[in-house]
């Protein structure tokens, strides 16, 4: 559901820099990135490993500090937030993690994990929480009868569904999906992508989809940003990018997309 261009952007990222390390071994993970996301829009952020896309996602989530630039949510600079303000911000912006095995606490049953989030964000009534968790379970295509189970009793795809349900618990308006399918089997990937797409359209969520796989992003997103070495080198609709890639990096990325018809022989490896 592409939003109209006149609408106020939900998230604005202005010339953001994130650095790791100290002076001599400084790594500029994110080196001056600017873009915005409108409500209900799904934006894909693509690039190879180490290009800074995950760092940017974490910076938006306020899990990493930024060193320069501004990240604004609904016109408000998020770097000022702390305590209650930050908690409130995290009610609006949520994240789905890459690793479905590690991102759920092995000692807490999956139902409790969702109910805890609801509790933290102010739903004090236990029955209400339980009911809401049931609904979320159903919304992501899981049987609520399994809510008392622990994470190790689920498969990777099911755990990722639980992760999605947990991030949806607070009714966010922006969802950051950090490589949500890269740890999953190809057959399961499609199911999770469909789920994300459905939910995004049903709830009119804005989605920032971080991935290294262009094919995956093309499937879900309205607009794609290509990142390389901490900078956005090209952006456009999937149609534009796939038919007329402008930047050489985008072309190498596209060439690396596996194509069964072409065969392995014609695939090229991305050169640095």
């Amino acid at each position, binding site marked *: 559901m592409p939003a109209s261009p006149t609408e106020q952007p939900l998230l604005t990222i202005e010339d953001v820099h994130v650095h790791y390390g100290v002076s001599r071994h400084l790594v500029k993970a994110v080196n001056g990135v600017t873009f915005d996301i409108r409500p209900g829009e799904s934006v894909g952020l693509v690039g190879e490993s180490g290009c800074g896309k995950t760092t940017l996602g974490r910076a938006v989530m306020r899990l990493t500090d930024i060193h320069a630039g501004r990240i604004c949510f609904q016109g408000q600079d998020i770097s000022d937030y702390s305590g209650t303000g930050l908690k409130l911000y995290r009610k609006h912006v949520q994240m789905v993690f890459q690793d479905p095995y590690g*991102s759920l*606490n*092995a*000692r807490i049953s999956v139902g409790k994990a969702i109910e805890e989030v609801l509790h*933290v964000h102010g739903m004090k009534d236990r029955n209400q929480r339980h009911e809401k968790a049931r609904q979320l379970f159903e919304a992501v295509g899981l*049987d609520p009868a399994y809510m*008392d189970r622990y994470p190790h009793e689920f*498969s990777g795809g*099911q755990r990722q569904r639980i992760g999605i349900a947990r991030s949806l618990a607070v009714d966010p308006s922006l969802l950051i999906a950090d490589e949500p399918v890269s740890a999953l089997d190809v057959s399961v990937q499609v199911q999770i992508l469909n789920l994300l797409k459905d939910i995004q359209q049903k709830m009119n969520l804005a989605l920032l989809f971080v991935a290294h796989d262009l094919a995956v992003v093309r499937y879900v997103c309205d607009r794609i940003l290509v990142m390389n070495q901490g900078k956005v080198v090209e952006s456009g609709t999937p149609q534009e990018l796939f038919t007329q890639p402008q930047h050489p990096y985008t072309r190498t990325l596209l060439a690396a997309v596996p194509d069964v018809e072409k065969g392995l022989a014609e695939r090229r490896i991305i050169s640095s």
Partner: protein
Amino acid sequence: MGGSTGEVEMNDMDSTTGPAPGRGLWGDAWQRLRRHRLAMGCLWIVGIYTILALYGEGVYRWHQWRDTTPSYQRTHVEHQYTPPSFMRTPFASVQVDRNTGEEIERSGVSRVVYGLRELARYPFGADGLGRDVLQRLIQGTRIAYQVGIITSLIAIPIGVILGCLAGYFGGRVDDFIVWLYSTFAAIPGLLFILAIAMVVGQGLLGVYLGIGLTMWVGLCRLIRGEVIKHKERAYVVAAQALGISHFKIIFRHILPNVFHVVIVTFTLRFPAAIGTEVFLSFLGIGVQGEPSWGIMISNARLRLWHGIWWEMAFVTAAIFFIVLAFNLLGDALRDALDPRLREQQ
């Protein structure tokens, strides 16, 4: 562990066993422990000691309440150094009467009854004041358990809380706590305990504080290391992103995942604390006026060279078995609870 249900999605899952109640990781660990025969044997031994300690506590309370001298304190000089009952041939047909010194011949039921009664009298022998070694041994178990439990109650909260704070927050907090436990670790343990005993006076309080305040260091160090490892894990980052408070993340999310360290440390430190108490009581700065194992050993050594071996032997055996049982149990628990071993399955 990853693919226990395989990559099945909902449709497959419905057709499987149905919604049985989920079993947590603690349940898994218990199942693993139950398969470990030696560990279950040790658990039984620990259980028996626990029952004896509770019985001893009951006897102690009872006499305190009635304001009577407990039987394990009553002296019978005429029975001093009575050997253990099984050495006195209780079922022999000819017995010497205890009071008159006459030889009495018994047979049949009367012989069995007399034998059983004789067997129950000083079963582990009597000490230099004619006190029952078995009863004193049970009271020693009570003291040992008190020391083990109370020192753990002092050491575990300190170690866990400081370890969690240091590991989770890092920076200045970590520096301070590392400095603190390094300082405590640098003081020779026994001297520290002696110093505390000097300050608070002789008796159990000094033992509790002395052992408790030195025991937390190892636990704190272990917990800190584990928490540092866990705070980078995805589930902790996820919890932060979900807006869960630091307090809840530490104590609800991380702590249950590192709690196996506490359990294992407890089972290994418990016998160590008992050993320290025995040693302190042996030196005479521990328990006063109560039959602790250390005091019993200290008393028994005086007459050991005269062939009065039973007091020493039974106390040593009691200590040996409880320390062995706790240590083997601790090892088995470490295997059962260790997440790394679980991953390999």
